[in-house]
């Protein structure tokens, strides 16, 4: 299994045991985690799964996986920061722990 710790804009956190291979977006939506919408189901069409990745997690996952993700990050509801990602593009690896913060709006 993998673990994702979601920190919300109000400072509360939700911890979910995720299935390796699923994305951070899918793990959130299927478990009803607030702050991530994922309207398009992970097809890189909506930019409603924006997260700020914690520094140590960023070392694990890196920056945008494609030009398309990079372009979409330019149009998120809350402006992107250095460690912004679309969480549908981050797949969980087995045995890893991920820390992300959700923005105020998607």
């Amino acid at each position, binding site marked *: 299994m993998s673990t994702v710790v979601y920190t919300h804009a109000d400072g509360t956190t939700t911890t979910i045991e995720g*299935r390796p291979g*699923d994305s951070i977006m*899918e793990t959130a*939506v*299927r*478990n*009803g985690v607030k702050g991530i919408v994922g*309207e*398009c*189901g992970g*097809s*890189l*069409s*909506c*930019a409603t799964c924006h997260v700020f990745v914690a520094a140590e997690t960023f070392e694990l996952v890196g920056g945008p996986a494609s030009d*398309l993700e990079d*372009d*979409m990050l*330019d*149009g*998120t*509801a809350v402006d992107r920061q250095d460690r912004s990602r679309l969480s549908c593009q981050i797949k969980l690896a087995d045995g890893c722990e991920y820390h992300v913060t959700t923005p105020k709006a998607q």
Partner: protein
Amino acid sequence: MAGTLIVGASQAGVQLAAELRELGWDEPITLIGEESHRPYQRPPLSKRWLKSELVPGDVILRTHEWYAANGIEVIANDRVTWIARDGDRGSAVTQGGRRLEFDRLALTTGASVRRLTVPGTDFHAVHYLRDGDDAIRLEHALHDPANRRLVIIGGGFIGLEIAAVARTMDKEVTVLEAGPRLIGRAVSEETSAFYLGAHQRRGTQVILNARITRIIGSPPDAAGRRSHVIGVELDDGTLVPADLVIIGIGVIPRTELALQLGLRVDGGIVVDEHAIASDGRTVAAGDCAVMPNPYPLGIGGPTRIESVNNALEQAKVAAASLIGQPRTYQSVPWFWSDQADLKLQIAGLSTGFDQVIVRGSPSEERFTVLYYRDGRLIAADCINQPAEFLAIRGALAKGLTIPAAVAADTTVPLKQLVTEPIGV
């Protein structure tokens, strides 16, 4: 025990249940759906599912644990066949013999495929695509090497998405469209013309203005099964050869239960801006509902929108109405369609446009079509232009525009062209 009954375990139905809990509603919720699958997303069914890139667990909307933790009882594989209500008390009877009492009722019954009414649609090799079982059957058929030649009837989003998938499997694909252009209901001639060329370049044959007289198949086998098709016959006598026929000619909203309840039905279950039906109590959301246009820049009047975005947004409004906290449904509708490597994103509703500006380069398959009415931007089709899509969706949500006179200037990022509308 009475509680809230949500009929239709759809994207709208699940969202409605989730929103009720989000709003703090803690009374019982029952979500019933006729399919055997856990509630799932439909959009992947015409795309990655057909390529066998997904398993059922990839497309579910929520986990079992989430429903359990939120006290939402999900009844699968059963269908409400009779329903009645008298004020705040109502009951429903299912095909499986259940009797469900409710004091609040939501209809998220969706839509079913429009059937083609020509002879020969009963052959086993003729497919429709709407639900999970359809997708599983079509996926198998597409991966059968004996099915080399596909005829797709209907040049709308579903048909073209399937065509694009089938071409990646090296199938011979012919799309038959009854109208004079592709995706004619949803986009301008400029966008239609682009998609015609784009699919032709990828090896799909397209026949426009096609009049289909029948689907011809081989004689029944010893067991009387009508399995194999030979082709699709057009009214000029042409026979388009086929091993597999897929029909995608739109959907019809499911209103049977609304009619039983005596609700007003007119091209869908008629609801107001709070998603409340004509009895003042029942709510409806998603593909089954006809509502006042939720898009402030749209043409007023009854509107039915088939999209994930509408299902989600309208369901939230419906949930609030159900517990006596009505909100008004307003939003900028948006939609997407992935066909081959072409990402189409549509913001707004273009109905009633009187001017079109093409920005960027259709020949490079990267451009945006902006729709104007009375000089004001109302919608856009963005092809492989995600940043422009988000800029336009954001502008429309804020009531801003992009002047038509400068919209085609690609030397300036679109984001920087967004301004206040003049004279509004």
